[in-house]
């Protein structure tokens, strides 16, 4: 089953309330996904040439301070960081590949949840309400956010199986459905140099889009290709550094509702998740069409 939600702000004056507006949306999808939950929030962007990485450690009292010191020394660079529960966000004056290589070598037990210039992913096993509280979601600021509540079907209820997944710079997607050609596609993408952490089908979709964008596709072109190359059931909500998209497969058996006002675009598996948004009673509310995608982007 699973629930997916997304909120993209058109009105920048609401950015300080992004987390507060989004938290009830995620919690409203608990019935569709009580096993684990997560979200990818975009905001607090670092300049070009710098990298923002979100790391997670299983121990709540992990010594991030030491890791930060070692990283600054190892990469011979400046960085800033902050802790959020058992995760920490680092902003590093270094490129993605350098950061990844150092982490793999020197901090292999710290799990990379996200890497990019804007994205922060936070996720855990447990009820959405618990996870939102743990990471203080309601206090978060940003331009857009996508989230997932999982009802585990194809693999165990573990941190590794928790969504959302990201495989490339700032790209993230949340998925309701199941892909049927993900194994073959994963092989193809691995040959193209895309990294995968799990056996999950949704991660392949994220990897596919990251690969298309790397090939120079616009988000629109990447989604056109995805409609041809992905087989299975899917409703996706996709975040990029400056964009937000929703796409459904041609069969369209996985639910989706979109709502748009002058202030925001909101997406959810069910309308219930949108019911508390300000001005929703006057919003344009519609069901996205099969084999169709919808994109909102701000200037890069």
């Amino acid at each position, binding site marked *: 089953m699973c629930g997916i939600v997304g909120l993209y702000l058109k009105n920048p004056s609401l950015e300080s309330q992004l987390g507060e507006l989004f938290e009830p949306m995620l919690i409203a999808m608990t019935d569709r996904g009580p096993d684990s939950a997560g979200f990818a929030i975009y905001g607090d962007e670092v300049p070009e040439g710098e990298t923002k990485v979100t790391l997670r450690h299983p121990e709540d009292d992990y010594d991030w301070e030491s890791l930060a010191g070692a990283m600054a020394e190892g990469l011979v660079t400046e960085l800033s960081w902050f802790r959020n529960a058992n995760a920490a966000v680092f902003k590093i004056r270094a490129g993605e590949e350098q950061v990844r290589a150092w982490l793999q070598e020197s901090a292999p037990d710290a799990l990379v949840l996200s890497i990019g210039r804007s994205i922060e992913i936070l996720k855990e096993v447990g009820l959405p309400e618990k996870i939102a509280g743990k990471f203080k979601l309601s206090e978060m600021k940003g331009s857009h956010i996508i989230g997932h509540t999982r009802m585990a079907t194809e693999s165990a209820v573990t941190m590794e199986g928790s969504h959302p997944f990201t495989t490339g710079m700032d790209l993230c997607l949340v998925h309701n459905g199941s892909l049927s050609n993900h194994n073959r596609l994963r092989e193809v993408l691995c040959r193209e140099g895309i990294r995968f952490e799990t056996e999950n089908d949704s991660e392949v979709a994220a990897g596919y889009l990251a690969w298309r964008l790397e090939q120079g596709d616009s988000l629109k072109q990447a989604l056109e290709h995805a409609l041809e190359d992905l087989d299975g059931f899917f409703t996706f909500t996709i975040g990029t550094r400056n964009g937000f998209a929703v796409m459904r497969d041609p069969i*369209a058996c996985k639910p989706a509702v979109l709502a748009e006002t002058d202030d925001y675009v909101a997406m959810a598996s*069910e309308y*219930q998740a949108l*019911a508390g948004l300000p001005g929703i009673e006057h919003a344009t*509310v519609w*069901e996205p069409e099969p084999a169709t995608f919808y994109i909102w982007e701000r200037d890069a």
Partner: protein
Amino acid sequence: MKTFDLTQNTVRELNQALHDQSGECMEREFDVFSPHGQHNIACGLDQNLSVNIMGHAGYFCAGMNKKATVTVHGNAGQGVAENMMSGMVRIKGDASQAAGATAHGGLLVIEGNAGARCGISMKGVDIVVKGNVGHMSCFMGQAGNLVVCGDAGEALGDSLYEVHIYVKGHVKSLGADCIEKEMRPEHIEELGNLLSRAGIDEDPARFKRYGSARQLYNFKVDNASAY
């Protein structure tokens, strides 16, 4: 008139109050506020009630309806009026997929668009959609009428039995064994009555009729010996 606010009462409480009328009817009119997309609102009614839902409803709204008139002043989620037996369900906005699925009787009016699989396996209900219907509408439809004042998506009427389908707009494609049929005077009359019952002002002469070509396996008498 009795009112329910679904931020104050549960859907179960509302439905119980509606079911309580099925024997001796103490209250015929109900207004439901703040539905907020909750599922199973006004399901399983069995009395001549009038229920107004003031906002968007979730899945299976007015499912299994008998006798009652249920109006949604907003959109409805999947499976609205599924397995309806009689009465009338009216959606002022759009309906999601599988509207009127397997319904045996009554009238379902959707004033906006209906999603995919509208009237799937319908068994006698009359469905009138003012807007468009999505793909695979009326799949395996057995009896009743589907009227579409807008356009129909792919594979309309696939594996159809005896439903009469009337479409005014463009049909993207017809499903297996579904064909366009002649619009005879009795069909103009039937369609005129359906539009009039639905309160929709359209000229029946501008519609085309579709139905089963009756060429699939189950229509062949030669296959009867298999049973």
